[in-house]
């Protein structure tokens, strides 16, 4: 009985609201669970990460506040600087190489009618694979003879065997190759969409003016593709700065710890993973995540800047 009366009262209250007020109530009702989610699973942990970065904490004993000691330790940690350099190597080799390759492919593929969809699918397929699975396929390719494909090919050509993943100088490019390979198809598809969006009238006008192809490319295609290029530069930079799956799977067991040999392939995210979940130095690991955050923030801000200059 009382429940009915309660409902009636609620009903009257609801009826008394204007259409506009009802909408506001609906809106906040729709947002209630998501706001709780974002608060608890995104914002609180973000603050928490900064807080943890100022502590020494192994999860067993209560965290001890140490101020900026973790960041000072980072500055003097040779492994960190090696890892930092590796991460930038992934970035500065991976991004331009994958972008140039994918642009050249998309630029030519755009003109192909015969089997266009099929060829595009060939380039796109690696994008749909699992990095962890493909890392093992490539790892197999890099094995010494008689197992490894690459060394067998080299042997066939009379070229000496290469250590690939076992070498401190070759391992990083060897890990990077499958990462570029896997992402290429995505970039080709995005470039193709960008090329399609350029109105053909520009090209027709250029042809009437008798512009050579290279000039058309430089003065029409590339400038009009700028938003696409900026998007892909940022997207792929962030991808290479966060590289993990490939490295973890291709270098585990080659030495005692992944990221080897001698930290030659270790990126920042792998160092974070090991510091936190192998050594359980939560504070030190959180400080490393703060560094990653700052680097990614710079990349994002640079993007905003470039887009504004458009």
């Amino acid at each position: 009985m009382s429940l009915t009366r309660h409902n009636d009262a609620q009903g009257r209250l609801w009826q008394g609201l204007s259409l506009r007020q009802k909408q506001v109530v609906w809106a906040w009702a729709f947002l209630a669970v998501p706001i709780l989610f974002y608060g608890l699973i995104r914002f609180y942990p973000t603050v928490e990460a900064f807080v943890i970065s100022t502590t020494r904490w192994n999860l067993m004993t209560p965290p001890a506040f140490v101020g900026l000691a973790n960041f000072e330790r980072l500055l003097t940690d040779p492994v960190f600087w090696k890892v930092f350099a590796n991460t930038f190597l992934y970035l500065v080799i991976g991004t331009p190489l994958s972008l140039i390759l994918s642009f050249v492919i998309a630029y030519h593929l755009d003109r192909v009618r015969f089997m266009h969809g099929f060829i595009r699918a060939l380039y796109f397929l690696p994008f749909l694979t699992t990095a962890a699975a493909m890392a093992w396929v490539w790892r197999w390719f890099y094995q010494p003879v008689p197992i490894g494909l690459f060394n067998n090919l080299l042997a066939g050509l009379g070229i000496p065997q290469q250590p690939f993943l076992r070498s401190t100088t070759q391992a990083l490019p060897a890990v990077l190759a499958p990462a570029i390979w896997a992402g290429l198809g995505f970039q080709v598809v995005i470039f193709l969409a960008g090329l399609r969006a350029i109105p053909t009238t520009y090209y027709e006008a250029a042809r009437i003016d008798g512009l050579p192809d290279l000039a058309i490319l430089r003065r029409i295609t590339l400038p009009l593709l700028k938003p696409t290029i900026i998007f892909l530069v940022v997207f792929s930079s962030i991808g290479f700065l966060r590289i993990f799956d490939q490295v973890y799977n291709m270098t585990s067991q080659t030495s005692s710890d992944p990221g080897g040999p001698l930290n030659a392939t270790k990126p920042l995210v792998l160092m974070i993973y090991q510091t936190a979940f192998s050594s359980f130095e939560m504070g030190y690991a959180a400080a490393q995540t703060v560094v990653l955050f700052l680097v990614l923030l710079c990349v994002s801000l640079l993007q905003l800047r470039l887009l504004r200059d458009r």
Partner: protein
Amino acid sequence: MSAIASPLSGRTGPGRILAWLLLFGGGLLMVTPLAFMFATSLKDSSEIYDLAFFPAHPTLENYVTVLSDGRFLRWFANSFGIAAVVTLSNVFFDSLVGYTLAKFQFRGRYLVFIAILSTLMIPTEMLVIPWYVMAKNFGWLDSYWGIMFPGLMTAFGTFLMKQFFETVPNDFLEAARVDGLNEFAIFWRIAMPLVTPALSALAIFTFLGNWTAFIWPLIVTTSKELYTLPVGLTSFAVEAQVQWELIMTGAALATLPTLTVFLVLQRYIVRGVVLAGLKG
């Protein structure tokens, strides 16, 4: 170079044919690792050292070996279930929030939008340590819920859906309102069907992303029964170190579902990538 590159030269010609052949060859090179993976998964262990691409005696023995110990089927089911639940959650909540932000007028709307969007700036790697601590405190470590909870909603999906709901004409919603439908019914029965292309793009992306997700499931799970396929494959490959034909079989099993889905839904997936890429 310029002969090949020419966008406006004649339809055919030696340059064009050469360009086509290079593109085609490049494409074949791209799928070579996948082809080798599948070919090797069909070889028996004695053939692994001879480098003929095609197995002399194709056999499904490796698949029987890998699938018969049951772990792969379990990991497969885990990955599928987790990706499916997370996808449903994202499709529902990202749309609901995107719709509310696109179609309702209320104070604080812009603030909510900016707050959600700002989470795109925060790399997941920064959150995994607090998430781990949270999961430990709440007893979520090593559970399905523990694997799923961080991904139930995403700012990217919300942003994508908001952009699309903005293209839905208000007249449709007003007409439904006049007919006496409540706001949730308007969202669910009128607005949602109008953005099906965006919903399928979001669903495909979320599913693929969760199917291949590696670092968080690796951190949060310790029992092998709870591993997702990528994490399970890693542990399997480490223990099967020298048996490359079995590792290739496992890798093939992890790859087959996404490739099959792609071959069936190729058109939608490519369009979805473009949609998401350009909107993102």
